[in-house]
């Protein structure tokens, strides 16, 4: 299964990472699943033009972090719950 996974993480107005995003990144590293994340994009809280904020707006997502999983056929699925991403996608990747 060829998929492309983008992680959108939030950066707070003061420049610090959001706690939940940092937590999820740590879990990705610890499990080794980080190798399946193709792209990490930042959503700056005080910059609506940042790439992550634009993606959030386009995809109508109001939670961070979130993941965009793009299938080989171009279909996109958004995950806002890390555990669900693990269960439905990451676990099945080689």
């Amino acid at each position, binding site marked *: 299964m060829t998929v492309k996974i983008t992680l959108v993480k939030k950066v707070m107005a003061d420049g610090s990472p959001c*706690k*939940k995003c940092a*937590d999820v990144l740590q*879990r990705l590293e610890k499990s080794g699943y980080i190798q399946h994340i193709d792209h990490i994009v930042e959503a700056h809280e005080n910059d609506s033009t940042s790439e992550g904020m634009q993606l959030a707006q386009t995809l109508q997502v109001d*939670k961070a972090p979130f993941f965009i999983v793009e299938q080989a056929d171009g279909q996109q699925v958004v995950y*806002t*719950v*890390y*555990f*669900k991403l*693990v*269960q*439905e996608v990451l*676990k099945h990747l080689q």
Partner: protein
Amino acid sequence: MTKPLNTLQLQLEYSERDPEAILELAFNTFDNIAISFSGAEDVVLIELATRVTDNISVFTLDTGRLHPETYRFIDQVREHYGIEIETLSPDYAELEPFVKAKGLFSFYQDGHQECCGIRKVAPLRRKLSQLDAWITGQRKDQSPDTRAHIPVIEQDLFFGSQEKPLYKFNPLAHWHSAKVWETIHEYDVPFNELHHKGFVSIGCEPCTRPVLPNQHERAGRWWWETATQKECGLHASNQSK
């Protein structure tokens, strides 16, 4: 047979540890273990468990008398985490004669024990007989009378036996309600919409009502009974203490 655990030693070691460490101990020690989900705010247990294991097994008791909001919430949790939630129903062979003989609201006269026995305790006993350990969201701050001494790990002698030991983990025992809600908000954990309507401790619809500000949360459960009777037998060890 499960290898006996030294629960006293573990309780000493883990009594001050955070819930994730206790969950890690639970999942590393037992494969045949499940989370008991009440449909209230102990959904944080599921959230915390997702951080330490990929193999989550969750069950809930469908008494048939839950609020519609609770049923919707159970499904929302299933969808949110992409997990199965096993819903346990009462045995109709027990339930039907009971309702036929006593009607649907006998608990207001007779006390809740009989109805809870059929709708909750018996299905729970059936489920627990298949497990080596279970995880609950019980907290000490929930009931001053009956939950003040909850350990983070204990041998469950009510539902288990010496021959077939059953262990119970209570990772949130030391958490206060405020900490639970902090986690719910910080991690966008779904919660039962009844909390917006003044409900704190949520159980069956006929036996739960909202509490007033500064009233204790258990005051909304089985309000026609005295405080020391306000347990449904799911955590029977609480009652003997």
